[in-house]
């Protein structure tokens, strides 16, 4: 094997041809020994190996050629690679990064990850949609049941809420009235009526009726609107009144739901309270604060729900009622009284 440090500056072709001549071989003789076409050897000697038709074989030819003239085939191939890379570097790089990127972005990991991400976002959206819908119902329904009965002394911090409720009520009345009319009118006027109502509470109806959708869908929405409004509107007709008065620091609230049984609550802290009477009508649903004194007149049995039961003392028809046994771990209590 010849010294390679000396030959480093020369090209592969010149190294090989020099070694060949040193051993006294002609190109033809080399070609005969390797069973190659003489032109291939000419190309290699002239550093024009790219002219050989099958590039995959060139390195093999170089190796066998080098072996024949007693050179190290691996070193020659290494040098050939280094020489070949220099001019074609940019092209090769562009191609290689492209394929790598393509493989990377079509890999199973990437695909699965993408699908998983989309599914996760979808589920998140669904959960958010439904939970936000629930909250709306919760905030509007109990207040609209009770607040319309307020006669006096509206609490100042509840003022804006009350206004809102009144508009809501008005709107729902309109829906009710509109839906009664609808029965005798044709479908087109249903759409108009729904639009005219500009109902804030049922936004979906509005958005649907203003866009061209099928009549069946519209009808279904209106039916839904009728049902929801009917529930909300019928309640204020119940014959019970709320009376609030402030004496010293104690607020006395009396709710008269038209019955002979009396429930009395004394609040020593904040507690949410819901009471249903014998007919299943919600008589009271509000947050009681410290110092409140609540009296409910109605017909037993009552169904009562406490949000924070330890903060309330209850008496039924003048008799103290022990809540302790009903309080659950999360401080709530659910009970029936006067069965």
């Amino acid at each position, binding site marked *: 094997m010849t010294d390679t440090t000396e030959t480093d500056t020369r090209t592969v072709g010149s190294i090989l041809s020099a070694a060949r001549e040193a051993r006294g071989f002609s190109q033809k003789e080399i070609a005969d020994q*390797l*069973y*190659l*076409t003489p032109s291939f050897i000419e190309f290699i000697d002239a550093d024009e190996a790219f002219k050989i*038709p*099958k590039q*995959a*074989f060139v*390195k*093999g*030819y170089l*190796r*066998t050629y080098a072996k024949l003239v007693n050179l190290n085939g691996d070193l020659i*191939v290494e040098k050939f690679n280094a020489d070949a890379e220099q001019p074609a570097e940019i092209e090769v790089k562009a191609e290689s990064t492209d*394929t790598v990127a*393509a*493989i990377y972005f*079509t*890999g*199973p*990991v990437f695909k*699965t990850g993408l699908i998983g991400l989309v599914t996760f976002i979808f589920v998140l959206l669904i959960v958010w949609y439904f939970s936000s819908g629930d909250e709306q119902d919760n905030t509007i329904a109990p207040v609209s049941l009770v607040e319309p009965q307020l006669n006096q002394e509206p609490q100042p911090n509840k003022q804006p809420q009350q206004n809102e409720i009144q508009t809501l009520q008005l709107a729902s009345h309109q829906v009710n009235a509109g839906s009664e009319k609808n029965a005798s009118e044709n479908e087109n006027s249903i759409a108009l009526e729904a639009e005219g109502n500009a109902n804030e509470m049922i936004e979906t109806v509005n958005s649907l009726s203003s866009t061209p959708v099928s009549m069946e869908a519209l009808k279904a929405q209106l039916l839904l609107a009728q049902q929801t409004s009917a529930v909300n509107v019928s309640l204020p007709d119940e014959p019970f009144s709320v009376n609030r008065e402030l004496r010293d620091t104690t607020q006395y609230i009396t709710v008269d739901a038209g019955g002979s049984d009396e429930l009395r609550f004394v609040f020593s802290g904040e507690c949410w309270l819901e009471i249903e009477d014998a007919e299943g009508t919600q008589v009271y649903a509000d947050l009681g604060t410290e110092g409140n004194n609540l009296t409910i007149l109605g017909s037993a049995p009552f169904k009562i729900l406490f949000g924070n039961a330890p903060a309330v003392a209850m008496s039924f028809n003048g008799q103290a009622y022990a809540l302790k046994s009903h309080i659950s771990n999360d401080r709530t209590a659910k009970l029936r009284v006067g069965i």
Partner: protein
Amino acid sequence: MFKKLRGMFSNDLSIDLGTANTLIYVRDQGIVLNEPSVVAIRNNNNQKSVAAVGIDAKRMLGRTPGNITATRPLKDGVIANFQVTEKMLQHFIKKVHENSIIRPSPRVLVSVVCQATEVERRAIRESVISAGARDVRLIDEPMAAAIGAGLPVHEAVGTMVVDIGGGTTEIAVISLNGVVYAQSVRVGGDRFDESITAYVRRTQGSLIGDATAERIKQEIGTAFICEEVREIDVRGRNLAEGVPRSFTLNSNEILEALQEPLSVIVQAVKGALEKTPPELAADIAESGLVLTGGGSLLRGLDRLLADETGLPVIVAEDPLTCVARGGGRALEIMDGRGDIDFLTSY
């Protein structure tokens, strides 16, 4: 479902399940495992358990006590012992995924001998699946070797690959991603070793082990008369005296020893050339045939084949790992392009 999930944490593998050595190529990592296909089985009151796999097991070959047997589960390129092969693959796949917490479930590409029957292919597929693979594809060994050697397999040009493995020599003519003609002879590196052992017994009257025979082949083995004659000192047990003796062998003696297996390979290559369609034969005559596999590292083998066939013969770069690398490349092509036609689906 869980297999798929686990698959995200495992790498795609290309396994060259050879008679002598098993190589595993991992995508983006290269060859990560190169171990002999040997399993040592411990037999305790008919309760069989795996004692060692791979290199550890190979060290036990011929040195085992009565209750341990070191076996090669593959023979002539196909599975000879189904359960042991499964255990071995399980061990290798686990070894490749050493640092992952989740049990691996990789996609595996296995190269099989061209001449393998449906039953043998199925056996390989089943054993790889029971070793924990998620998906198994089979590829013809010469095809993988050709891809690994960087040959233009997808072009309408004939190329001949001679893959000399441990147990078999595969000769295939490839064109347009397909094997046009294939032949395999059950001669490979192991047969070379056996021939050397037999020769030494005949001429020196001494018995040498497989490992020594392999060392002789690697160090001074040649297939063609060389100008420089190499020598090696070896020790073997003298058959007549029964004691270990040291003696010297030279490369010409080994050349003589290897004549018989080499002639089988040469005849097979000639036979393949005869049966190659003329257009492809013309292509091969122009560009030559390519040697891959560990056997092609035998000195002068390319010269021998070139002289015998009158065709240019080249040895692929890094011939030992050609098949495994080619399989890995095939996996990459598969990912880029979906399914590819050179994978056998059964």
